[in-house]
């Protein structure tokens, strides 16, 4: 697995590179967008994942993201400082896969990378259509949901929302993305629709809606459906 790490702080860059190398990843590092562009242009082998730090000396990475999205479905994880809220959300809306707020732990980073890589695998082959976690089973093909083996009745909108989250299970989906994909582009400001329907979904699927295990909230950003139990994706680093 080849990873491009875009980070201008030398210490952090070295620490992350060592940690990732220890996990078996081949790590390329760049300290600026220009350097990253050069690396991408001349890379002999294709990359599998990009870790993109916001606040690079020569830009915020939006353009790089657009380039990457045009070229291939290369997963991009955004590493951001807490204050860069708006920028982070813009990148997620523009198609970045997930984000981590600095300072983050290596375990957290590895977990996010694993989800992103698995999703890339499914994007190439078949998308995840059968989601199981704890007592909940969601079958997108059959459009059925079970909890503790008993069928759960969902309204069409509830199901559409849930299905959208299943397709990106384990990753954050922004409010805007959810509203656009479930209700339509003209509803992207109607965040209160999401609050209502997520509340309904939690009431139907969670044991303790105030402490969800499945339908997780990322305040100010969006929602994340917890990773499914089984881990079918190709996980072995090359």
């Amino acid at each position: 697995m080849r990873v491009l790490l875009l980070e201008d702080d030398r210490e952090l860059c070295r620490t992350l590179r060592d940690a990732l190398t220890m996990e078996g990843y081949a790590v390329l590092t760049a300290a600026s967008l220009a350097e990253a562009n050069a690396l991408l242009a001349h890379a002999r082998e294709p990359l599998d994942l990009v870790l993109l730090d916001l606040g690079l000396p020569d830009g915020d990475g939006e353009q790089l993201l657009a380039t990457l999205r045009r070229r291939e479905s290369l997963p991009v994880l955004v590493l951001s400082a807490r204050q860069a809220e708006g920028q982070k959300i813009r990148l997620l809306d523009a198609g970045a896969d997930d984000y981590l707020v600095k300072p983050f732990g290596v375990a957290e980073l590895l977990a996010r990378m694993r989800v992103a890589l698995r999703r890339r695998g499914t994007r190439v082959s078949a998308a995840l259509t059968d989601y199981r976690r704890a007592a909940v089973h969601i079958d997108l093909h059959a459009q059925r949901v079970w909890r503790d083996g008993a069928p759960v009745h969902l309204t069409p909108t509830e199901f559409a929302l849930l299905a959208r989250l299943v397709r990106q299970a384990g990753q954050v989906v922004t409010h805007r993305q959810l509203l656009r994909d479930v209700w339509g582009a003209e509803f992207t400001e109607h965040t209160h629709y999401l609050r209502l329907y997520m509340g309904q979904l939690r009431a139907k699927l969670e044991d303790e809606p105030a402490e969800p295990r499945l339908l997780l909230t990322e305040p100010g950003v969006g929602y994340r459906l917890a990773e499914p139990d089984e881990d079918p994706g190709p996980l072995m680093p090359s």
Partner: protein
Amino acid sequence: MDSLDVSRGESRWRDAWPAVPTWCAGALALAALDGRVDLANLAMLLVLASALASLWLPAWAGAASGALAVLAFNWFLVPPRGTFAVDLRQHALLLVAMLVVNAIVATLMGNLRRQARSARRHAQRAEQLRAWGETLRDAEDPLAHAGSLQQLLSAASGDAVALLVLRDALPETPDEAAVLRVGTPDGDQAVGLWHCLRQGEPLGPGTGRHAGQPDWYLPMRGRGACLGAAVLRGHGLRPDDVLREHLQALCDQMGGALQRVRSQREEHRARELAQSQTLRNALLAAISHDYRTPLATIMGAASSLEAQGARMDAAQRERLARSIVEEATRLARMTDNTLQLARLDAPGVALRCDWESAEEIVGAVLAHARRQDAARRVRARLEPDLPLLWCDALLIAQLLDNLVDNALKYSPADAPVEMLVRREGERIVLAVRDRGPGVAPAWRERIFEVFQRGEETVQRRGAGVGLAVCRAIARAHGGELRLRPRSRGGASFECVLPLREPPAPPPGTEAAA
């Protein structure tokens, strides 16, 4: 009083009317007594009437009317009657004496009256200055009295008056926003006003500066600064130095008052600056102090890993690594809080508000607390059917996160910590409650201040900026954060947020399904 100074021309004649009946009465008396008393006595009667008339007439008019009366006396009463011919031996002396006495009486009376008038005017001007001074002395904002000054000047001079009063410092170039303008000066006058304001000297006829101008420009002078200017339209054409000095005194009183308020304001500003400087220094000192503890732990653990790591067993290494991670997390939280406090403190801070569900925010905070301390019993209780909140979810999450962290830190390890959300009329209450030692009454308000904390040994609540940022977040949302002691021990921190009219629900009926 105000109209006094205008009474230079017409009203003097208005006041003179009693002279006419006096002369008439004199003439009648002369006609009646003619032939009964001798000519010398009649002459005394005429002198008396003339003196009386002079009481009301201006000096020259008194003298003139007296002269006319003597001529008439000569014509009607002095033999040979019906001619101006005079018997030089008999009557010439009488007539000349009458003329001279009349003239002297008229002049004396006129002077006396002029002096009295001037004394009265002085007294009234002095009273005017005193009353104006009184008005300004108690004025919070002398600018509000600019209209009164215009009226005063206008009444005292009888001219149209326009003012320019500085609001704050004198701008580099004429700037209408920097001044209060009263009245409507024309273009030349506006330029003149700015010139006068800048020079701080009176301009116009009699002042020795720009004497060709038809108008008077009077500065409002404070100590070493000019804070305004007035123009008296056309008054320079009738120069009157005494009046100008009076008007100047009125203007200078205004200048003095403006200066007083300005120096008060500057003093206040300087004091505030000094205070915020002190606060900032205290803040920095306290931040450095607070950062030192986790930094010391990290330094200790990391350096011992570096120096002795090879000789340690796996468990020891893991323990050190964990304490580094924990203290780094603490540092991160402190940094978040400090940054947020600075951001919320800045003027015009923009919140990223949206419709948020209390359940979701509480859920996120709970998940975070579990990650930090899985063993602790943090519970959440939410009233059913809570309305949506219009708030910045990240900030409210930060607020609750800080409160939960505090509650966990300051209560026994086995004591429960609760998050409670309920509706209270048009407000929503987010409470974090613990069963710790509570907060001593003396500290209940102070713990919300930046870098206040209870006595180190007894109380360690509210350390650093944590509670200060919580309160700042609540207030930025138009709400409040308060502390309530619990009846059976412990503290309840309650964030009260106002509710807004909820948005329209999504169309369709499936929401009820």
